[in-house]
């Protein structure tokens, strides 16, 4: 059984007064296996964000199913959604989404505190993660005191600390400079190598080229997918760029 199964997913937005309806997702099908590192690419308006919101259980599909470990998202009760999200999903956002009222340490603890864990236990869980992300000296600082790259590493730590089934990353390098971006992507690669499943939505071919598989979305459908196989980052990058060019030219499936 796959870790994540998305079957004929459809999402229709109605304008407020029930006038025109917009089909954000038409018919999306794909699966993610345990331990995979998948990138989803597509232009603005292709339905990427809608897809991610549905996968994050922040939004509900009009039709179709999403299964995580065989559990259907649409069957989760309203009041269990938050704790389901907390226990199974880790998030990394473009804008970091750290609360400025907390130190980095407290930001990372947030999901655990919500789950009712004690301080000693949280601290024991945090330390190895903080060391591997290189933020152990920054824990007592506030978000406004550290750089963007450091903030994003803290956000990754927050995503990892619950040991989620899957990490959902939304343009994680979007707000970072190229050096910080490279560091973060290496971090994702390392995390993935240790067995963590990662699903990343991105614009950047450079970011996508570090993944194991790339899904291309256009007009609300999975238009194409590329497997890395044994290829190097550079070669895979070239293939992704070629596919994007093809997409941009409106070409048919390769």
């Amino acid at each position: 059984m796959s870790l994540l199964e998305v079957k004929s997913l459809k999402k229709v937005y109605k304008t407020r007064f029930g006038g025109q309806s917009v089909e954000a997702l038409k018919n999306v099908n794909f699966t993610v296996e345990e331990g995979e590192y998948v990138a989803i690419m597509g232009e603005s308006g292709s339905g990427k964000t809608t897809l991610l919101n549905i996968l994050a259980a922040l939004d509900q599909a009009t039709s179709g199913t999403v299964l995580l470990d065989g559990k259907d998202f649409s069957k989760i009760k309203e009041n269990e959604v938050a704790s389901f999200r907390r226990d199974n999903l880790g998030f990394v956002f473009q804008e970091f989404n750290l609360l400025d009222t907390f130190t980095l340490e407290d930001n990372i603890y947030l999901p655990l505190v919500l789950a009712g864990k004690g301080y000693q236990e949280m601290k024991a869980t945090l330390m190895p993660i903080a060391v591997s992300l290189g933020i152990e000296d920054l824990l007592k600082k506030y978000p406004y005191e550290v750089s963007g790259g450091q903030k994003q590493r803290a956000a990754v730590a927050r995503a990892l600390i619950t040991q989620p089934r899957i990490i959902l990353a939304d343009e994680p390098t979007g707000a970072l400079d190229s050096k910080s971006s490279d560091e973060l992507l290496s971090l994702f690669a390392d995390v993935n190598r240790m067995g963590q499943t990662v699903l990343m939505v991105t614009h950047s071919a450079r970011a996508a080229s570090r993944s194991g598989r790339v899904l291309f979305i256009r007009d609300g459908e999975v238009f194409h997918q590329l497997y890395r196989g044994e290829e190097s980052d550079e070669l895979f990058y070239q293939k992704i760029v070629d596919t994007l060019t093809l997409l941009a030219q409106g070409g048919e499936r390769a």
Partner: protein
Amino acid sequence: MKKLFYPRLAWEGLRKNRQLSRPYLLTCICMVAVFYILSFLASPIALALVVRGASVVRDIMNLGKFVILVFSLIFLYYTYSFLLRRRSREFGLYNVLGMGKRNLVRIITWENVITFAIAIICGLLLGILLSKLAELGLVNLLGGTIDFVFRIDITSLWQTILLYAVIFGLLMLSAIIRTARANAVSLMKSESAGEKPPKGNWLFAILGVLILGGAYYIALTVNNPVTAILLFFVAVVMVILATYLLLVTGSVKLCRILQTNKGYYYKAKHFVSVSSMAFRMKRNGAGLASICIIATMILVMISTTTCMWFGADNSLRKSYPREINFTATLNDPAKLTDGTPEQAASVILDELQKNGITPKNIREQRMIDLSGVRKDGFIQCDYETASMGADFNSLLEIYMVSSDSIETSDNSPLDLAADEIVLITDGMDYPDDTLTLAMGEKTRSWKIRHYERRDTDGDTSIMGFPTMTVAVANLATAVEGINDAEKYQSRWYYSFDTGLSDAENTDLHITLSQNVRPNLNDLFTEDATRWISIDTRAEGSADFYGTYGSLFFIGILLSIVFIFAAVLIIYYKQISEGYEDAKRFDIMQKVGMTKKEIRSSISSQLLTVFALPLIFAGMHLIFAFPMIRKMLALLHLTNVALFMRTTVISFVAFAVFYVIVYRLTSGIYYRIVSGLNQND
């Protein structure tokens, strides 16, 4: 078309920001209206309608005008800077789009001109409309002829326009200076600048507690009215300072302390609340402290003036025990016992008979009154130095009366020897069995034959100090040989009721002054008399009701303005918090908090933050109570139950109103928080 460019831009700016600018305008209008009303009531047109105490009314209304003016300046400055801060992004955008400082200044100028115009026109219209109501209210309170003629006072109109033009000019100037100093980037950023976490300051927190403790200590330990008046303002300043210190830094410090307690802090219930409370308090501490101060002000004002108004009658009776009161203040105490008072009384009675009046409730009193300071083993009585002396806490009032004019509680016979007295104290204990009074160089001692303490809560005193009533066998011999009249005063009181109307009593007063006063002067002799006065309660009541009535009236008017101000601060606070919290709300939801959790966390924070000013105000009020009570005693308002009742009613009414405002404004808050959520 081009000419109207700036006014149009300014108008659009106000319109687009109506969520902020509308309440501001409303407040301006309200202040203008109240100022005009007070101005109108102080004008000769309105005063002509009032029969009682017109001059007092004028003075008090003028005082009220002054308060409103100062408050307008401070408060409008405060709210206008808030508005400007919110709008600086818009100005920054104009700046980036190529508008120079000069153009921005023109927009700001126009905005102020428009605001001023609206405030003045609407404010004056409202003021004129309501001034009739106010006039009816005042005339009703103070007595006078009610009519339904609509009056407008032109002088008041001009005065209002002029003074508010100055205020708006100052506001505009401050805005222009502020804009001139800022640059485009800082204007754009000023709202989103990364916020440093607040650091609670030990020093300020402790200082706040100490100052508040000090103020409360003063309020509780003051034991006489004169000191209370002197220290009241000191205590008020201390309380204001302490409130700001405690709410701004003390509360942050408290959150920080809670955060170091890991077991407490890392609980789902406290985690988010405590840390964001620290931030909330840093930004809102000053606003909350202002709300608290204003609330306390309103409560003190309303409860005191209400108490004054309802206690006026009591107070009047205390000051004028009967409808007609004769007082002869004498230099020579011998005149009290040589039969002169009896002759004087018959002169008065004769004159009354001639006028066909039968006096009722006749009260005749002879006494020697002294002020004293309690020393070791004796009491220093020195009328001048004692009453001027700085140490009010040891001052006593001593009333020496003849033994046949009092009764002891056990009706024991009072045939006193010359060296014996009966002593009755009020508000103090006297444990010794002799009483020694030092008057100048001389001293007198008596054995205390009978002692009792009768607490009347200030009823026996005139100045509000503890009193000693000393009954002696013979008044004149008690102070014999002490000729210096500066050390004591000998008084003869003769008072009675006539059962006539106020107007008739006033006429009678004139008759008595003309026909009786010369005779009394002759009887008591020029040399032995300091002065003889005739007071009627009818005339006293004009002053009393004039004073208390217009204070009551102004208390209500000012409270309305202050309530407006408090509501506006609350409203702005909710809006600014809403914008700040919207983003946080969103993040927390993404991280795995349910909407319900977030809502309940935020509403518990809002509630805590909101309850604080009310709790503090209530606390201040409780501690101010004994102090204000002492001051009211000086006005012969000794009805503690009445004051307690007006205070409790004021507090409850205010609390209900406060909760309603909280409910309404938190609706706006939630709309902002969830509104931004959808746009995301």
